[in-house]
């Protein structure tokens, strides 16, 4: 049932061209160059080191690796990470 609901949701979003992250509760990652990264719709920080940040989301764990990573801003729905961003791993 959940799988079907997910599929239907995707189809509806596509036909009506609604923003997917709102319809399907998935995180949205915005990378600006290699200096800033936005993660919207997250579920908390799992690990924070100077060279690695792991964020929990509805689809799994999102890993950001790099250097001098600083959490510029953190609010319940959004994290802004700045620093030298090397790798963003969203494979679940």
């Amino acid at each position, binding site marked *: 049932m959940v799988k079907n609901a997910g599929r239907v949701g995707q189809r509806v979003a596509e036909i009506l061209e609604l923003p997917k992250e709102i319809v399907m509760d998935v995180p949205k990652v915005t990378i600006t160059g290699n200096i800033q990264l936005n993660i919207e719709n997250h579920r*908390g*920080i799992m690990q*924070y080191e*100077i060279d690695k940040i792991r964020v929990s989301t509805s689809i799994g764990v999102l890993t950001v690796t790099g250097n001098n990573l*600083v*959490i510029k801003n*953190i609010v*319940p729905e959004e994290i802004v990470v700045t620093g030298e961003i090397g790798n963003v791993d969203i494979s679940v």
Partner: protein
Amino acid sequence: MIIPKAAKYIRGYLTIRVKGLNLEKFLNASISHGVNFWDVKKVSMTEIQLKTSIKGYRLLKRTLKSTGCQLSIIDKNGFPFFMSKIKKRKMLGIGFIVFLFMIIILSSFIWSVRITGVKTINTKEIEQNLAELGVKPGALKIDLAVADIENNMLIKMGRLSWIKVRFVGTRAEVEIKERVAPPEMVADDKPCNIVAKRDGIITKIVSSSGDVVVSQGDPVKKGDILVTGIIERENMEKRYVHSSAEVIARTWYKNSVTVPLQQAKKFRTGNKIANISLLIGSKKIQIKNNTIPYKSYDKIEKSTKIIDTDFFQLPFEIVIDEYYETTGKYVKLTDEEAKALAAESAEKAIIDSILPDARVINKVVKTEIKDGLVTADVLIETIEDIGMSEELTVYDTPKQENIPTH
């Protein structure tokens, strides 16, 4: 919901360090409590540094216990902390506010009046008239309506042709232009002749109205009729017109000045006494006052304003009166010096009286020394318009034609 930095500063924020093992748990817990923090940096394996608002700081302290972390304050920034510092030094804050008020109030007044553009009018007269209208040191700027003052000044002083009053900082800047008396003109509807106002030789004569009775090259004397307003033609009655013409002629001016070779001159002996006083507004307070023992002296008054910039003046002046003792001595001028002095003053007198549109074409200076006196005779030739309107007296009353000149 990312608040701009300025708002953060105004509300005040703290920089704190959190030490512990479950730092990520601490962060998540704080977020769920709604704490707003930013610039999170990892400083060591067990320590992070972050900035948060004052409200956030209080909330954070509560989550510390449940996650087993320690907190230390590194820095305090922002307006609320500034205010608590000020509260400990109330007088400083109050003094600052009083200072601001004083500046504002003092700059709403006029403290000095400066008049420019004066050539022959007595400056004191202008100052007095301005003072009557309210423009004087100590006057409130908002009480003065510039347009009314300008109009009233023009009405009061007929010798002003233009006046502009404006306030620059605490100074009233008054610019004037004097009225140059126009040459006496005969009204346009009255018949008139053009006569010579000086002796001269005609070089060019062009008339737009009236009959020309002289020609190029004629010598004329002061008062000769150059263009007549009485028009007589065959088979027509006499007509009277308002003549108008441009009469350019070569004319000359003479002047003679005598200067004695020996002149009585005042010399300063070198002795000097200075008195200092302070001028506040219009009150003079003596600081150093000595009686002057010299029999004859030059008095030089030097006054400097304290704080006299283009934007801001205060009516405080330091007045230094210097008295230089003098004696009379007879100075003998050399022949050359005396000749030069006489020639110069003779020339100057002529140049000052010539109209601006006269063109100087020649200058002859003759000097003579006799009986201890130097006489300089200066002759200046110019080319200028020597025409002048002179009203026609009409004896009988024939047809009068009123021809306007334009």
